[in-house]
């Protein structure tokens, strides 16, 4: 709680910088506009103009806020079904898009976590895996998966699997890596002494895994889960760009970019940030509960 004041201060500073940056970034257009209208702008008029443009290079926080409000709660003002209940939960509202993204993110995250843990276990238990696969796990992350996302989408399309799965696969690809790396570390975290202890009790491999390696790896697991879920979100968003940009936060980003609607981009970014924050907070909560129950958190 002592952190509230510092956090608010930092946020205020960021807001201040944001407003300040909007002036020079948007000034050119404001001046052009004035020139077209054959007027000149005073300093305060300029500031006023830069903070309230329709197509700003940098929309101001209150514009983004307004856009968020509009696209979440007042989303249905156009089209044949304008004003109907149905359309509040559809299309224009950000919520269904956030849901699309969230569901793919979670799917990718779940598969990625399972895959990551599986890989980590086999790497820890098999020297052959450790030596031959580990370097490729690292190399795999240097492949710009995001650049080949469109191809993955197409390949899966061609196998008759459109939409959800290919996006989830891209999310998986990005999220399994932190889990593998973290879990390899975590599963190797028991000290020699702890392992020897198990030996003196003639514990089986499975017992050692369940009662020693797994508990020791928990803090590592949670730390990497937080990274992984953020990575999964990035993967989903990027995967959404070329899948016909039908729905999801990525589609909003793309459409915002396509129509030069910076406000839409920023609103989508904020929505993504909120999603990330919620997911990370959830994992933190799970972490605290688990570690507390394990007696690892004081």
């Amino acid at each position, binding site marked *: 709680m002592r952190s509230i004041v510092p956090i608010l201060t930092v946020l205020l500073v960021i807001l201040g910088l944001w407003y300040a940056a909007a002036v020079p970034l948007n000034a050119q257009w404001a001046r052009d506009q004035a020139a077209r209208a054959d007027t000149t702008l005073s300093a305060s008029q300029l500031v006023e103009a830069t903070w309230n443009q329709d197509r700003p290079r940098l929309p101001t926080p209150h514009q983004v806020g307004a856009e968020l409000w509009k696209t979440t709660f007042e989303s249905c003002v156009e089209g044949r079904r304008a004003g109907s209940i149905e359309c509040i939960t559809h299309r224009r509202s950000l919520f269904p898009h956030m849901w699309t993204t969230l569901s793919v993110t979670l799917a990718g995250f779940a598969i990625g976590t399972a895959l990551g843990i599986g890989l980590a276990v086999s790497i820890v238990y098999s020297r052959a895996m450790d*030596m031959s696969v580990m370097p*490729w796990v690292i190399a795999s992350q240097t492949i710009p998966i*995001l*650049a080949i996302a469109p191809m993955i989408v197409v390949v899966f399309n061609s196998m008759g699997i459109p939409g959800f799965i290919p996006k989830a696969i891209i999310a998986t690809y990005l999220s399994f890596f932190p889990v593998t790396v973290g879990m390899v570390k975590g599963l190797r975290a028991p000290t020699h002494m702890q392992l020897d202890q198990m030996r003196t009790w003639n514990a089986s491999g499975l017992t050692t895994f369940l009662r020693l390696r797994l508990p020791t790896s928990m803090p590592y697991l949670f730390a990497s889960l937080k990274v992984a879920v953020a990575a999964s979100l990035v993967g989903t968003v990027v995967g959404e*760009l070329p899948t016909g940009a039908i729905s999801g936060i990525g589609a909003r980003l793309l459409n*915002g970019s396509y129509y030069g609607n910076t406000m839409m981009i920023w609103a989508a970014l904020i929505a993504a940030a909120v999603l990330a924050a919620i997911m990370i907070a959830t994992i933190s909560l799970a972490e605290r509960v688990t570690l507390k129950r394990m007696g690892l958190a004081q």
Partner: protein
Amino acid sequence: MSMTLIIAALAIWLGGWWLNARLARGRGRAVALAAPLLFGATLLLIWELLVRGLGVPGAILPPPSAIGVAFSQNIPTLWDDFVQTFVKGALSGYAFGCGAAFVTAILVDRSDFLKRGVMPVGSFVAALPIIGMAPIFVMWFGFGWQSKAAVVATMCFFPMLVNTVAGLAAADRMQSDLMRTYAASPWQTLTKLKLPAASPFIFNGLKICTTLALIGAIVAEFFGSPTLGMGFRISTQVGRLALDVVWAVILVAAIAGSTFYGVVTLLERAATFWHPSQRGR
């Protein structure tokens, strides 16, 4: 015909695995090098056989051999793309982002107030899909490598910041108390204790950023670029269905990324030789 190729692929998988399992029992540098190479080679062979065996069209997934040919035929183009994207975009953004994060971390470490304010906000921003900034940066910084560097710098900033700040707090109490008993100046404490103690964390951040840098630079090119660059090449050649060239670019990216990662790992090894994690298992 195709069936035999698929069966051959399976056989090679098993054979490669068996060989690797045998190899893994050995020790030494040679084995450590041979095992992953063998694994990679098996993978490529299986890919080749499956693509041919299943008759996958080249416009979907070319076989490795075709990629190799495309690579060797396009070396000058690939080199120019590499310079544009990796050297100009990724490296400069990496240096700038990591450098700025490093300086910020030192400032943050000096002030508890800053630390308490910046770190929660920082970890929140770090979780943002910064990739979404790419179209905005292209708008702000133009089509050249500068906008790519800006994307890379932004992507690298927070992971590096979070790691470095954690590292600067990594010196244990006794180690810092020792500095206190010497009445060491803040600068002396920084150079003689905090930075060395932080270096494993700093290198962790640097390593994470190597992969981020390449991805950021390439994806940023999707939102506008001059007529060269790895991202440009990939997206243009996909349009022409020249998938072999596309994969050649990906190959370049993988080589560049792995080398980059490897170099940072070597530096890490040299700088943190004293850390238990570097002294063998």
